[in-house]
């Protein structure tokens, strides 16, 4: 049985060596070939003298090499850190430095964007470029290896690791400060794959179209679940939503995972009637799917089963609503996934009554190992499990999600809101202070506050109020927005920028009063702000 992440491919390569594991554009890779590529990569990692537990950053779009690097890292006993390909150099630099990445795997063009930040990454010793010709770039103290040099099949001595060891670090935002690295063990990831493939009833004939980034848990699950059951993952980097529909048809896809903004774009397009004949299921996570969107999807895809899911990276995956319940409870986020328990509790840890709002707490094998090198934030989110048996002397830790939910009398969960200031937009969690810091570092503003306002398609839209510096007092909202587009990934670019001449409102501690400011703007905008967005 698979216990480590790379076992997922290894076992399938033994039983079904010629099944197709991956397809990207015109390239198809069987499980046997994928396994060989993974060994090439792992051997190179061992040759470069990395040791068990070293971090390997992977910054690339979805392509075969990206997948090979993730699993090859696992095989070499190291920790893979997939970096969202949408991130800009400053954010990449933060991650490389934060978890002391010693090997970076990236593409030639992405490498050229990083030239100005690599000197900040003190621990970086090696770069593997997904290219077969050497770029004319030299870095002090960093050794460059080409992907085409990964050809060594001779058996290496790989470090011995167990499923409790760290497999990956996935970066995610919270309500304050810089992104945090969620530490996942091999057990977390393998248990997640087993649990999800059980309730989606996945099998070896499934073909999943992977459109979500591989850098967060729901996206990574696209790979791990398919490798577990021996199915095929078709990788896609899309610019236009209609290309997704074309590929669903062309590749006879059986499953598609998406986030609400994607579904909202997709239902506005033409769908071939034949797609629902092979598209067995779709899954939604990363936010609530609007009623009308779900209705349109069910109309466009009458034979396709929709699964509504909820999860947070800290506990991998948490709940899902079975398709059979969708008619009667379409607002529900469902019940716990197999082998997890979901509690709804009051602040003191006592259980809520039916319909009483409380914090969602997840316990079980999916609970991550904490935030990388961040004991304070870890202590806020990973806390003793409520209602532990008094005779059990070792404290069990559970994830306190920060999401407020309620349970109906049949045990189905409903999302109510958050108890902190995290902005949830386009399926991402965004920290207000990360946006504020970008504005401050631009030196264009003296004061800034960022918060989320309700938005019908995005979940939250990002609203920013700024007071400009005197030298820049003529700047327009458009100029500020362009500055944001240069420095922030698309999902973090504010939708509303308000320029004020006054100092921002303070609370009794003398801090900018984000709460009052956000409440007043929420009321001004109302529930449906779609009109203000293009």
């Amino acid at each position: 049985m698979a216990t480590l992440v790379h076992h997922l491919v290894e076992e399938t390569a033994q039983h079904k060596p010629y099944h197709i594991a991956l397809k990207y554009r015109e390239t198809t890779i069987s499980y046997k070939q994928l396994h060989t590529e993974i060994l090439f990569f792992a051997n190179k990692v061992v040759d470069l003298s990395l040791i068990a537990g070293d971090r390997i950053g992977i910054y690339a779009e979805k392509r075969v090499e990206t997948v090979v690097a993730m699993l090859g890292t696992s095989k070499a006993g190291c920790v893979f850190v997939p970096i969202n390909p949408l991130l800009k150099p400053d954010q990449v630099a933060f991650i490389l430095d934060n978890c002391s990445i010693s090997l970076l795997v990236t593409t030639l063009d992405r490498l050229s964007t990083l030239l100005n930040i690599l000197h900040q990454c003190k621990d970086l010793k090696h770069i593997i470029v997904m290219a077969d010709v050497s770029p004319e770039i030299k870095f002090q103290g960093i050794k460059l290896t080409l992907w085409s040099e990964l050809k060594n099949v001779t058996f290496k001595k790989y470090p011995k690791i167990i499923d409790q060891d760290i497999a990956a670090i996935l970066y995610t935002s919270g309500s304050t400060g810089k992104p945090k690295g969620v530490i996942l063990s091999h057990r977390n990831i393998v248990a997640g794959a087993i649990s999800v493939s059980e309730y989606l009833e996945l099998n070896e004939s499934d073909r999943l179209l992977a459109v979500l980034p591989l850098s967060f848990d729901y996206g990574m699950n696209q790979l791990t679940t398919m490798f577990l059951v021996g199915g095929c993952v078709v990788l896609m980097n899309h610019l236009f939503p209609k290309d997704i529909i074309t590929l669903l048809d062309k590749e006879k896809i059986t499953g598609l995972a998406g986030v609400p903004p994607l579904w909202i774009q997709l239902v506005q397009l033409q769908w071939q009637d034949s797609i629902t004949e092979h598209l067995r299921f779709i899954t939604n996570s990363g936010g609530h799917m609007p009623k009308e969107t779900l209705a349109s999807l069910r109309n466009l895809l009458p034979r396709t089963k929709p699964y509504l899911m909820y999860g947070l990276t800290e506990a991998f995956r948490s709940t899902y609503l079975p398709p059979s319940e969708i008619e009667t409870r379409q607002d529900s986020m469902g019940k716990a996934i197999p082998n997890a328990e979901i509690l709804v509790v009051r602040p003191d840890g006592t259980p809520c009554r039916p319909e009483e709002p409380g914090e969602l707490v997840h316990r079980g094998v999916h609970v991550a190992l904490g935030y990388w090198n961040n004991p304070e934030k870890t202590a806020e989110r990973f806390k003793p499990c409520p209602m532990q048996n008094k005779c059990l002397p070792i404290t069990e830790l559970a994830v306190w999600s920060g999401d407020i939910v309620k349970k109906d009398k049949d045990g189905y969960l409903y999302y109510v809101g958050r108890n902190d200031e995290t902005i949830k937009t386009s399926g991402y969690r965004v920290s207000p202070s990360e946006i504020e810091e970008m504005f401050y570092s631009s030196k264009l503003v003296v004061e800034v506050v960022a918060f989320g306002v309700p938005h019908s398609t995005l979940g939250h839209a990002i609203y920013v109020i700024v007071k400009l510096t005197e030298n820049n007092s003529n700047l327009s909202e458009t100029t500020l927005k362009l500055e944001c587009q240069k420095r922030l990934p698309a999902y973090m670019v504010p939708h509303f920028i308000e320029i004020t001449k006054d100092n921002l409102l303070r609370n009794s501690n003398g801090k900018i009063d984000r709460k009052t400011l956000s409440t007043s703007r929420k009321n001004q905008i109302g529930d449906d702000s779609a009109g203000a967005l293009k």
Partner: protein
Amino acid sequence: MRNDTTQLIEKLKSVLDAALFLSGRALQWNNQMSLLGNVPELDSMAIMNVLSALELNFNIMIEDDDINADIFATIETLAEFIHQKQKNQAISFA
């Protein structure tokens, strides 16, 4: 004709460079280099900037139905698309 194509490609690179804030990086691109996925700045949000910059600078109209991933495969495919657009629209104006 050959000269026209070269000119169009050079102009295209500088338009992309400006629309995506690449500070000159696009000018160094190889014409066969893959654009889609490979250029971190080219995402679903930036594509709106790119499309309007192309319309403005090449004096063409781009409809939703015209565009798909194949057109944005490489600099060459994108240049060919613009070239065809210019040709067709010149005919329809004539």
